[in-house]
């Protein structure tokens, strides 16, 4: 192989890196390292001029190895691999050093941060010396798609893909389609019927020739990789299985159970109900207490289970608007009733939502603000139940007064939370969850419906709480991503798989016993292990188990990682040079 000629680029990321790390000093320190031809710093390496700089340098200086020291490789490794390709270099001759997420964003001390950055970039330089050209592999995309979840997001994505003429398998774990939206009367802010929307969707899905609906079915034991996934269907026979190329996860949300909040008495006070239970009441057309009386005093409590350190710290995003919708619906149904809203902060963002707030506030509704971190409203049975069912004590923070509100009916605006079994789904599709058990997108702004697992997309409230328009938009975006992948027909897959050097292999078969994918077979004739590179996912556990070093994992070879360790610690001073031994 030709002599390495390395170009090093230290990114400022605007001021993100530059204000903590002395980028010029880092770049200068790299100049002295073996095989480094040039070392530069630039304001935005990922920008077009930044990438053009690399391409120009590769061409003018015959560079054959590139180190980009910038943000996390999880964000821009693909970007820079493409840059290398544009310049005619093999994309795997790149190494990134993460000096933003792992340095400038987590350290304040400039000297220490700069020293750390130097050692990370030096490690990338020593590593890239040992990088090898890897040939990309492409596989055909199976044009069928698996959609997990039959709520509004799953239905939308299914229709979008099926209408484009592609096969969809729609999995729903319950015995009916429609999800949470099927239990909603009207939607905010326009008071159009959610029922009509969802029932139309369900009807179309059931009649669609390209959609196969599987009710009472959970996503389990999915195997394979982008373009070629499989899922067994044991209830349809031993060998029955689904085959599909892409997956959209749209498993939705679960309403929070408010019985854990002592102050609200949900579960033992009969006329304290949740927002979804009230939707049912609206759909039935009868707003009444458990005794069948028309309520005279109605209180709606916001942020039940949301924005509180004892429940969920996040905002569930839809409850404020739903509460305003309820108040408006109540006002037209019961013109004489007293309607109260106990809210923490009114969050009426979104198109025409602030307008709904304004309209609702003109309908003789009493708004009371409480501090959801300190004093929750406390509901108790009224001692004399002739006038009202319950009394609610609220510390109203705008006036500073303790207010006692009568109530015959209390509606709790419950939070959205992840399903209990979401971890099982995450495991079978290979996607990570955030601290609140919502699925993590590949990039919050640049790639919001993709995940870090190729071929797996997310849509709807399994990603984060959101309303119907946002769920539908995300579902359509996920469908578009799937359709474009089907349209291309092929996908490049990771080539960082393992392979055996048959001359070194002693035939001990240790690698076979540790491989989680049964990707290694044994050639009885030559007494050596052989890797099936289609099945191999490149975890590398065989490489670390191999006693002779015969199995290597591409792009994560022993030599590459060892040299990275050396480079990382090369910045520490040595007393003498005589200890330069080889392990």
């Amino acid at each position, binding site marked *: 192989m030709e002599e390495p000629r390395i170009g090093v680029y230290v990114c400022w990321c605007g001021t993100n890196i530059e204000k903590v790390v002395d980028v010029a000093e880092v770049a200068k320190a790299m100049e002295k390292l073996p095989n480094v031809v040039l070392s530069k710093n630039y304001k935005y390496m990922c920008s077009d001029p930044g990438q053009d700089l690399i391409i120009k340098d590769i061409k003018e200086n015959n560079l054959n190895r590139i180190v980009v020291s910038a943000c996390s490789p*999880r964000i821009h490794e693909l970007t820079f691999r493409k840059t290398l390709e544009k310049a005619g270099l093999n994309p795997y001759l790149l190494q990134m050093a993460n000096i933003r997420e*792992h340095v400038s964003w*987590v350290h304040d001390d400039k000297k220490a941060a700069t020293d*750390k950055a130097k050692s990370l970039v030096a490690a990338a330089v020593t590593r890239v010396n040992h990088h090898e050209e890897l040939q990309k592999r492409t596989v055909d995309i199976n044009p069928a798609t698996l959609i997990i979840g039959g709520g509004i997001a799953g239905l939308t994505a299914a229709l979008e893909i099926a209408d484009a003429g592609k096969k969809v398998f729609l999995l729903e774990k319950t015995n009916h389609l429609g999800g949470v939206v099927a239990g909603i009367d009207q939607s905010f802010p326009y008071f159009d019927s959610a029922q009509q929307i969802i029932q139309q969707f369900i009807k179309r899905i059931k009649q669609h020739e390209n959609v196969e609906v599987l009710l009472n079915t959970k996503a389990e034991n999915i195997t394979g990789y982008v373009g070629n996934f499989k899922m067994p269907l044991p209830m349809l026979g031993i060998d029955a299985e689904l085959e599909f190329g892409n997956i959209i996860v749209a498993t939705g949300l679960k309403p929070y159970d408010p019985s854990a909040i002592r102050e609200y008495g949900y579960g033992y006070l009969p006329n304290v109900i949740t927002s979804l239970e009230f939707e049912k009441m609206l759909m039935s057309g009868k707003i009444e207490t458990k005794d069948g009386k028309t309520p005279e005093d109605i209180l709606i409590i916001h942020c039940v289970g949301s924005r509180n350190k004892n429940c969920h710290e996040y905002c569930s995003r839809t409850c404020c608007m739903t509460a305003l919708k309820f108040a408006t619906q109540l006002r037209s149904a019961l013109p004489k009733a007293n309607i109260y809203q106990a809210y923490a902060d009114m969050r009426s963002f979104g198109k025409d939502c602030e307008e709904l707030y304004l309209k609702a506030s003109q309908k003789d509704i009493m708004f009371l603000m409480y501090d959801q971190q300190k004093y929750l409203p406390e509901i108790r049975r009224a001692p004399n139940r002739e006038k009202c069912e319950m009394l609610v004590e609220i510390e109203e923070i705008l006036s500073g007064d303790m207010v006692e509100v009568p109530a015959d009916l209390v509606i709790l605006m419950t939070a959205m939370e992840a399903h209990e079994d979401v971890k099982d789904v995450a495991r079978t599709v290979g996607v990570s969850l955030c601290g609140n058990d919502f699925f993590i997108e590949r990039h919050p702004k640049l790639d919001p419906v993709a995940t870090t697992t190729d071929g797996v997309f997310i849509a709807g409230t399994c990603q984060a709480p959101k309303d119907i328009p946002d769920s539908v938009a995300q579902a359509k975006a996920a469908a578009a991503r799937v359709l474009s992948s089907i349209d291309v027909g092929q996908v490049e897959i990771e080539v960082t798989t393992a392979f055996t050097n048959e001359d070194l292999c002693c035939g001990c078969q240790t690698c076979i016993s540790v491989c989680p994918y049964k990707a290694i077979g044994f050639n009885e004739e030559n007494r050596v292990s052989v890797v099936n590179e289609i099945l191999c996912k490149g975890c590398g556990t065989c490489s*670390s188990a191999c006693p002779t070093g015969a199995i290597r994992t591409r792009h994560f070879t*022993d030599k590459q990682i060892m040299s990275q360790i050396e480079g990382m610690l090369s910045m520490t001073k040595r*007393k003498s040079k005589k200890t330069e031994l080889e392990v």
Partner: protein
Amino acid sequence: MEFQPTIISFLCNWCSYTGADLAGTSRMKYAPNIRIIRIMCSGRVDPTFVLKSFREGADGVLICGCHPGDCHYHEGNYKCLRRFKLLHKYIQQMGIHKDRLRLEWISASEGRQFADLVDNMTERLMELGPSPIKEIMEIA
């Protein structure tokens, strides 16, 4: 000058490296003593990587993987755990204090835990002082 330890750390791509990235995007501050190497799975951590790190002058080595049951490759973290247990005994026989090598589980959402872990390990290494291997290898 106060002794500043150097920690070499191996983080799996799917959980722990992402967790460390999250600490970054959340701007959580932690000790600058750690140097992170990204690997695809904690199962890739060859015991020789750890020995090499000590030999090159690391004062501590930290391995992080997905929580049990959450491994992206099903069971790589268990393989790592088995190797770690043996290696942990082995380094002590070489005169390396047991607290200089740690294996911890960090998920993609545990940025805070990662930052605290680094601080905690750095503090412990400052108490222990420089690795004895550095003396033998004549590393300042």
